[in-house]
C-alpha cells in the first residue's frame, strides 16, 4: 500500500486547474462562497499527522512546474511562467522578457526576491526573437495566456512554453491549455505536447483531459519558421479536438442510451407487465 505521503502527494498531483489553493484573485464577496480547495481538504484529512502537510514541498514543486504555474512579479501586471525549463534551482526561476529572476514559493504560489537576470546563452538572439514571435502568436489566439522561451540542455535546445488558464469558480468550471515545444537546432526538429484540462463540478465532477504529442521538422532555424509550425500544429489540433467532441457525441454517447425508445414514446408503466421482450415493443430489441 502507498505511504500516506505518497497518497497525499497524488492528491496534489491530481488537482484540477485553479483548485489547489483558494481563488485569491476573486473579489472578497465571491471568495466567501468558497471555503474549500485541494490544499484545505488535505489539511483537514491529515489533521492528526500535521507533519505530512509540511512534507508536501516536492509534490507542490512538481505540480507547479508540470502545470506551468504563472505568477505576477511584485510591481508588475504581467504573469510569468514557472517550469523546469526556466528553473535556476533553489526555488528561483527567471523570466527572459523582464530580464529578472525571482523566488517562487510552491505552497503559496507567490513570488518574491526579484533580481535582475541577464540571459547568457549562445542562442540568446534566437531565444529573444522566438519569444517575440511566440508572444504575437499567443496574443492572436489566446484571450489570456502566458508564454516563455528558454535555452535548455546546455544551449543545445530551446523550450517554448504556452499556458492559458480560465477560472470561473462561481460557475463551477476551470480550464487550462498547455503547449510545450522543444526545438533542436542540430536536428531541425520540433517536438513537444499539447494538453487540455477542463473541470466542471456543479452537482457533479466532469473532466476533459487531452494530450497530444507534437512532432515536426523545421526547414530553417528562424523564429518565423518555428512559429509557423507551432501555429499549424495548434490549429490542426484544436480542430481535431472539436472533431473528437462530435465523434464521442455521435458514436460512443449515442450507443449507450437512447433519448427515447425506438417507438419515440415514453413507456406506459401501467402496462409494463404486458410488455414482453422481443415482441410487443415495435421490434426495438431485435438487435440483441
Amino acid at each position, binding site marked *: 500500500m*502507498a505511504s*500516506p505521503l505518497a*497518497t497525499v502527494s497524488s*492528491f496534489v498531483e*491530481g488537482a484540477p486547474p485553479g*483548485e489547489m489553493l483558494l481563488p485569491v484573485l476573486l473579489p472578497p464577496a465571491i471568495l466567501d462562497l468558497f471555503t*474549500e480547495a*485541494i490544499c484545505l*481538504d*488535505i489539511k*483537514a*484529512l491529515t*489533521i492528526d499527522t500535521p507533519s505530512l502537510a509540511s512534507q508536501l514541498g516536492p509534490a507542490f514543486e512538481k505540480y507547479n512546474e508540470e502545470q506551468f504555474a504563472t505568477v505576477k512579479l511584485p510591481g508588475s501586471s504581467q504573469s510569468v511562467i514557472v517550469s523546469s525549463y526556466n528553473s535556476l534551482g533553489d526555488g528561483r526561476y527567471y523570466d527572459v522578457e523582464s530580464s529578472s529572476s525571482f523566488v517562487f514559493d510552491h505552497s503559496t504560489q507567490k513570488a518574491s526576491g526579484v533580481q535582475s537576470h541577464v540571459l547568457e546563452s549562445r542562442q540568446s538572439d534566437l531565444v529573444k526573437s522566438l519569444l517575440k514571435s511566440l508572444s504575437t502568436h499567443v*496574443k*492572436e*489566439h*489566446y*484571450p489570456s495566456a502566458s508564454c516563455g522561451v528558454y535555452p535548455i540542455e546546455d544551449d543545445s535546445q530551446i523550450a517554448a512554453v504556452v499556458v492559458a488558464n*480560465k477560472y470561473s469558480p462561481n460557475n463551477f*468550471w476551470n*480550464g*487550462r491549455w498547455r503547449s510545450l515545444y522543444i526545438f533542436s537546432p542540430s536536428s531541425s526538429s520540433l517536438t513537444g505536447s499539447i494538453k*487540455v484540462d477542463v473541470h*466542471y*463540478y456543479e*452537482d*457533479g*465532477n*466532469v*473532466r*476533459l*483531459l*487531452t*494530450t497530444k504529442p507534437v512532432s515536426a521538422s523545421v526547414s530553417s532555424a528562424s523564429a518565423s519558421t518555428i512559429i509557423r509550425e507551432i501555429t499549424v500544429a495548434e490549429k*490542426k*489540433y*484544436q480542430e*481535431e*479536438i472539436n472533431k473528437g*467532441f462530435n*465523434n*464521442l*457525441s455521435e*458514436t*460512443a*454517447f449515442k450507443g*449507450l*442510451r*437512447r433519448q427515447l*425508445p425506438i417507438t419515440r414514446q*415514453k*413507456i406506459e*408503466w*401501467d402496462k*409494463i*407487465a404486458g410488455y414482453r*421482450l422481443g415482441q410487443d415493443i415495435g421490434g*426495438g*430489441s431485435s438487435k*440483441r
Partner: protein
Amino acid sequence: MAEVDQFDSALDLLRRLDPKHTSEHLNSLISLVPSLTEDLLSSVDQPLTIARCRTTGRDYLLCDYNRDGDSYRSPWSGEFETPLGGQGLGGVDDQGNNEGAGEGAVPSERVRDMEVRANEAFDVYRELYYEGGVSSVYFWNLDDGFAGVVLLKKVATPSGKSEGTWDSIHVFEAVDRARTAHYKLTSTVILHLSTGNDNLGEMDLSGNMTRQIESDLPVEDDTSHIANIGKLVEDMELKMRNLLQEVYFGKAKDVVGDLRSIASLTEANRDKATHQEMINSMKR
C-alpha cells in the same frame, strides 16, 4: 466535529480529483483516514461491477445495497452469492442477523415480491432505452415504507479507439401516506467516454452528475409503486441524459474555445468593432 469536517473534505476532494479514478481515490482516502470507511463507501457512487447469477445464469450488478460482507444478493434468484471469490455466503445467519448491509439486506416477502416485478419492469426499460447492458433492482424495508436502488450499466465500443461506459444509480425512498406515497429519488450517472488516434492523441471525457427530486404520487396497490418509480426514473434519466449532453459536448467544448480561439483574435475583435459601429450608426 473534526470527523464531520474530514468527511466533507473527503467528498470535496472526490469532487475535484479526476472522476475516471474515483474508486482509486476512494481507496486512498480510506487508507489515509480509516474511520471514514463506512461513510464514504455508502455515499460515494462507483462504477458498477457485473456478476453472473449462479442459479439463473443472468448477469446482475453489484453495489453496496446488495452487499453483505463479501457476498452479494442476485436480484434474479434472491440468493446471496460470492461472485468475487469472497468467503461464505451472506444473508441472514442462524441467529437472524445479517451483517454488512444492515437490517434491510433481505427484504420482507411483500417487498421482495415488488422487487421481482420491478426487476422485470426495468429489464424491459433497459432493453427499450439501452438496447443491451445490464439492469438490477434491489429493495429493502423501511419502518414507514420501503426503499430501493435501480441500477443500469451499459458499455459501448462503437469503433476504433472510442469507448463509452454508462452507469446509472437511482436510490429512492417510498414513504406510505393515505392513498399516496412520498418518493425521494437521488440519481447519479457515471459516464466515461474516450477516444484517440494519431491526429487527436488521447481524449478522455469522464465524470458523474447527481440530481435529486421529491414527489407525491397516488398509490392504489403495490403495482402502482412500480409504475411510479418507473416514471420517476424514466423522467430523471431523460433529464440527466440531456444535462450530460450539454455539459460534456456543450460546456466542455465551449471552455476549450474560451481558452484558445481558432480564429485570429484581431480579426474577431475587428469584426466585433465593425458590428458595433453598424449598430451605433443605426441608432443615430
